[in-house]
């Protein structure tokens, strides 16, 4: 298939049609893209390197945003208590936030879809065992589970080691806290697919069970998973920021958006509002944009609403 026909196919698809008809969704996609580009290319795009101590000037600390009376054009959104450029810190922070939440969701999807597929396809005691565990975990809110896992990691690892692995501890905590939703959805669609003729046909020609599950059933079960994964990504961004804000996520040496808000919160009362408000706005806009994309995807993939 050539390039042009792929683009043509995309342009003719229902998904593109509903996408281009919703200006809000297009705006959300653009904002998300902006964040992703800003995060990916932060080392090249950011006006300053906020983590290179040589370029930091303590004299520049607490510079307000450029448009205020005391502002300076080099620091568009002002600087924090150590003279770090707030805009650059947001770009680097968004990088960590996106990295953690994407990796966490990838983990939840792999884990949840795998277990859901096994439960739905195998049935019997495997199904009962996996789904009971999912039920039990769903009784407790995900944020509490992530907090607990993080706390355990804190006890098990010495603090210097912990700071080094903070990213992976967060990914594991958030990723593990969210698998049951994916398992439930995958199981439900797998159950529906399992009784269809193509599965029986595959069985008759002698294809092994696991191969049918992975190659034939799984692709048909992925639609709803994609929807929850998008909404789950927004939730993971918020979860990461919440944990970092609570002081149990990313350390101040590698701040995510949540850590930046935690640091800035201390200066809210003394009048340096820009240190906390800009990271907070960035987080809000990012989570809103991803949420909007998820909402749109849910409606666009729902045949009942067409």
């Amino acid at each position, binding site marked *: 298939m050539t390039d042009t026909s792929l683009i043509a196919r995309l342009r003719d698809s229902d998904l593109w049609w509903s996408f281009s008809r919703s200006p809000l969704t297009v705006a959300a996609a653009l904002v998300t893209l902006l964040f992703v580009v800003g995060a990916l290319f932060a080392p090249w795009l950011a006006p300053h390197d906020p983590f290179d101590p040589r370029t930091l000037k303590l004299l520049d600390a607490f510079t307000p945003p450029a448009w205020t009376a005391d502002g300076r054009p080099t620091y568009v959104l002002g600087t924090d208590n150590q003279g770090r450029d707030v805009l650059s810190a947001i770009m680097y922070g968004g990088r960590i936030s996106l990295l953690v939440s994407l990796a966490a969701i990838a983990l939840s999807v792999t884990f949840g879809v795998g277990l859901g597929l096994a439960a739905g396809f195998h049935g019997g005691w495997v199904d009962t065992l996996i789904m009971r565990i999912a039920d039990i975990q769903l009784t407790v809110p995900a944020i509490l589970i992530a907090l607990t896992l993080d706390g*355990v990691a804190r006890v098990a690892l010495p603090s210097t080691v912990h700071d080094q692995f903070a990213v992976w501890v967060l990914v594991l905590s958030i990723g593990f806290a969210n698998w049951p939703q994916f398992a439930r959805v995958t199981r439900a669609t797998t159950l529906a697919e399992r009784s269809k003729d193509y599965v029986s046909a595959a069985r008759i020609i002698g294809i092994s069970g696991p191969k049918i599950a992975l190659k034939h059933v799984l692709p048909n079960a992925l639609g709803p998973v994609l929807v929850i994964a998008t909404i789950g990504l927004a939730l993971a961004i918020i979860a990461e920021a919440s944990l970092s*804000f*609570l002081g149990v996520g990313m350390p101040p040496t590698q701040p995510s958006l949540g850590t930046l808000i935690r640091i800035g919160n201390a200066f809210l009362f003394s009048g340096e509002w820009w240190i906390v408000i800009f990271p907070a706005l960035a987080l809000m806009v990012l989570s809103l944009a991803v949420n909007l994309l998820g909402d749109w995807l849910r409606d666009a993939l729902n045949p009942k609403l067409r």
Partner: protein
Amino acid sequence: MLSFLVSRLLQAAAVMTAVSFLCFVLFNFVGDPINNMVGQEATPQERAELRHALGLDDPVPVQFLRFLGNAAVGNFGKSYRMARPVEQLIVERLPATLELVFCGALLALLLGLPLGVLTALRRDTWDTRAVMTFSLAGVAMPTFVSGILLIYIFSVECTGWVAWLGLPTSLCLPSFGRGDTVQIGWWSSGLLTGGGLKAIILPSVTLALFQMTLVLRLVRSEMLEVLRTDYIKFARARGLTNRTVHFRHALKNTLLPVITVIGLQVGGLIAFSIITETVFQWPGMGQLFIQSVQFADIPVMAAYLVMVSFFFVTINLIVDLTYAVIDPRLRVDRARAAGNAA
């Protein structure tokens, strides 16, 4: 009905056993409890004696049963950080959290339910669109960000505006702590004093915001679905007034799944109060828990988890039973699905 009751009770028991087992594992095997209790200079013999005195050299099943027995009577040992019995610490902070959760749930319900009905009845008007856009912001906004923004507007910036208007600064809202409290037995209440009531406004609004948007969206979508059904058309055909159709026939049937979700959300409120309490330095259980996570204070963590899961399980059980009482068809599965979709 009886088999339903028994299966629910069994599930609740399973959850509690699983959680207490996890807490037990946490308590006994993550880090060495002896190391956490004695100082650096304790001799090996002293350590062994303490180990024996605490029963830490018994077989694991025996230890687990003892842990369960102690937990059942509310004995969770001593906090590593504050060297005080954990149950004392929790009981001290319980009222603050429960009052916050109560006010938050009340606010979420009192705002979410009417707004949901309103936006379902007045489709495609500008006020509905405004409310829905606002609710989307509520879903996307992390709890701590809304808390910080509220503090910035109503506690920080407010002083400037109030001074400019020549009004007393007492019009601005306090941004941390519980204000004045009254002691009633072991319960310290902030709801009976002016200062206490003023202090709970911002935290409870922060806590309620997210839950309110959930209730709003759920009530709206359920109501829209019910309004499309045949019996509503029939009620209209019978010439009943709009009022009767909407509130007698439609709203009643909307409320079934809403009850389930609200019940489950109370559990969520307890969990999210951890964040709200941190933002507003609210001296509740959530703050205690987050401090215990930061300092690896395992007994407090374990006790908090067991207690909160107990709350969740009890609430779930009550919700399921209420549901069975209200809805004679016992559509448990549908309610669960609705709860998770939200």
